[in-house]
């Protein structure tokens, strides 16, 4: 018989810890690696080099329109691997739980992780749980790490953006950040904005399949599209020209941003990537992206220039041009 809430003993390594593993984690996540129940999971090697990444998740609220911390924790790590051109395979998951956290919510989160891992075709092969006294952490924090294997001969990195490249955005921007903002207490928005949180590895695989001329892929997470474009421009020492009117923004996100004083170009995404690819490959690439679940609204929204300035220039809807700087000042706290 399980307790209804997490107690300190659930993280103590004793009987209750074991019960939590056997009655909650294993029935949901169970796979041949996890069921080894050893101190490490032993996984198969891949053909190319291993890509390895980790990310921590503290999003508030834990459940938000379009997703939850579990789906986010899987997608965040999967996407970091995918945009490197790697094929994500194995994930670890560590949970920090606040004493008193409802077991029903934990179960819902772990199920969501399993569903998302299945969708992304990755396996959660190892994990850990710690419980801290009430007040020492806020409800639940998750850290995931992931291993993927590189596709040999497909170098993708921010420094490879090249003058003349088309800048492609995989979908409408600003949804995750505004989903979190508008679901927080007290704002009382009548229409819900759903987060875009999604695993992008099928999209990236389809992209890499259609052309070898993708120079850069990045997921536009914290700091939003503007910040990622600045990172690309500065790493490649080139300039990027972004057309404001071509950047997809849903009406709901645009309206909420106007109301709350945000610029959608700086708002976080969890299922949108930016790619720089040779202009003559862009048409085929766009078509391949639009055939994928998370790329149906992909567009070309800019180009890489040849000034070498390392700057991003925005062509505004009004027809003027200005520098689009990196996000500076305060970010939204606990967005992911």
């Amino acid at each position, binding site marked *: 018989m399980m307790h209804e809430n997490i107690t300190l003993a659930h993280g103590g390594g004793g009987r209750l810890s074991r019960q939590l593993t056997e009655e909650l984690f294993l029935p949901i996540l169970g796979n041949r690696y996890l069921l080894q129940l050893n101190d490490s999971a032993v996984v198969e090697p891949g053909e190319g080099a291993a890509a390895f990444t980790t990310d921590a998740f503290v999003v508030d609220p834990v459940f938000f329109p379009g997703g939850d911390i579990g789906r986010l924790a899987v997608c965040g790590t999967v996407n970091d691997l995918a945009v490197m051109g790697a094929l994500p395979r194995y994930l670890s998951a560590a949970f920090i739980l606040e004493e008193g956290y409802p077991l029903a919510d934990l179960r819902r989160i772990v199920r969501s992780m399993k569903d998302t891992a299945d969708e992304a075709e990755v396996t959660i092969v190892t994990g850990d749980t710690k419980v801290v006294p009430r007040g020492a952490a806020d409800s639940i924090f998750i850290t995931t790490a992931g291993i993927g294997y590189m596709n040999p001969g497909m170098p993708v990195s921010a420094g490879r953006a090249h003058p003349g490249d088309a800048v492609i955005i995989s979908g409408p921007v600003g949804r995750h950040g505004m989903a979190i903002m508008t679901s927080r207490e007290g704002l009382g928005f009548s229409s819900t904005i759903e987060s875009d949180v999604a695993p992008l590895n099928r999209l990236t695989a389809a992209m890499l399949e259609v052309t070898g001329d993708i120079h850069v892929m990045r997921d536009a997470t914290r700091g939003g599209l503007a910040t990622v474009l600045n990172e690309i421009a500065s790493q490649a020492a080139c300039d990027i020209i972004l057309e404001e009117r071509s950047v997809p923004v849903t009406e709901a996100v645009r309206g909420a941003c106007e109301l709350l004083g945000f610029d959608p170009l700086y708002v976080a995404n969890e299922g949108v990537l930016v790619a720089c690819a040779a202009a003559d490959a862009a048409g085929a690439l766009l078509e391949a992206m639009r055939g994928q679940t998370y790329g149906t609204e992909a567009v070309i929204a800019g180009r890489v220039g040849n000034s070498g300035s390392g700057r991003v220039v925005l062509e*505004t809807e009004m027809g003027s041009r200005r520098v689009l700087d990196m996000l500076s000042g305060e970010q939204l706290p606990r967005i992911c």
Partner: protein
Amino acid sequence: MKYIDEFRSGKAAGRLKEEIAAAAAGRPMTFMEVCGTHTMSIARNGIREMLPAGMRLISGPGCPVCVTPNGTIDHAVALARHPGIIIATFGDMVKVPGSTSSLGQERAAGRSVRVVASTLDALELARNNPEMQVVFIGVGFETTAPTIAASIITAEQENLNNYSVLSAHKVVPPAMELLCRGRVAIDGFLCPGHVSAVIGSSPYRPIAEEHGIACVIGGFEGLDILQSIAMLARQVAGGDSRVEIQYRRVVRPEGNPAAVALMEKVFRPVDSVWRGIGMITASGLVMRDAYRRYDAAVRFPVTVEETKEAAGCICGSVLQGISDPRECPLFGDGCLPETPVGPCMVSSEGACAAAFRYRVSRRADIGQMHDA
């Protein structure tokens, strides 16, 4: 959202750009936007680069956070350190540095400082914490003052005895009149849209009629601003200064009499110190005697530290339109949005923050952007 797109149409912007150039006919003109929201919109929409050569837009003292002097921040800090007090404030104030501390630093040190979105939240905080005293830091212009007046009246009606306000409110027209006599020759004011929605157009009449400076009350979208500038340029070219309203969908000539009545019921004008400008006659608001018990400055006699100004910061001169933010030696170097020295960089609507965020990515670009 069609409603927004209509105000950013490139085609209409192109037509207005031509109208402005035609009206100015090569004559140099300097316009000051008084509101921080205008400052941000001008930068965000790249309006400056659409104007003819010789036409300058300068930012004025229109961001309430920016014009709040160090002494007020220090007073708020002293209250935060007073046992039993919860400070309720708008978010922008938290990071503004005072003489030696800020509300953010006090919060990090364990004092109760809560960010609220409106006075309704501050009242709720007071209701939910009857054993504590909630002090709202009242910073703002005529746009926010009526809502704070309303909160005081609500507290009175509910017999809520643990709510009070540190009133640092300011009113805009006296500061504009002072700028008319200042060092910068201003041809026209882009008057604040939201403030004017409350006070109407008549308070600007002395500026237009006695000082001969064009006044247009403008909205905040890109096209609103271009159209307002066209109206200002036509007034200046025609030598005929008056108060016009471009932002007709929101501002009425008589303003919002109910809001003004509320403000006047609770507050009375008082001489007030503006950062960088100094004391301006009848430019602040203090609670009338009938509401003095809601004045935190009266209710909690705290000792406020001696005021110190940050060395090298030229916010004062930026606020008067004398200096461009990029002329400050600290701009983009010691003073950044992450580590602001002066309030114009802290506030999301400050002139320095706007200049930093939307114009220049590195100091090395400044010359180039200036010339462009």
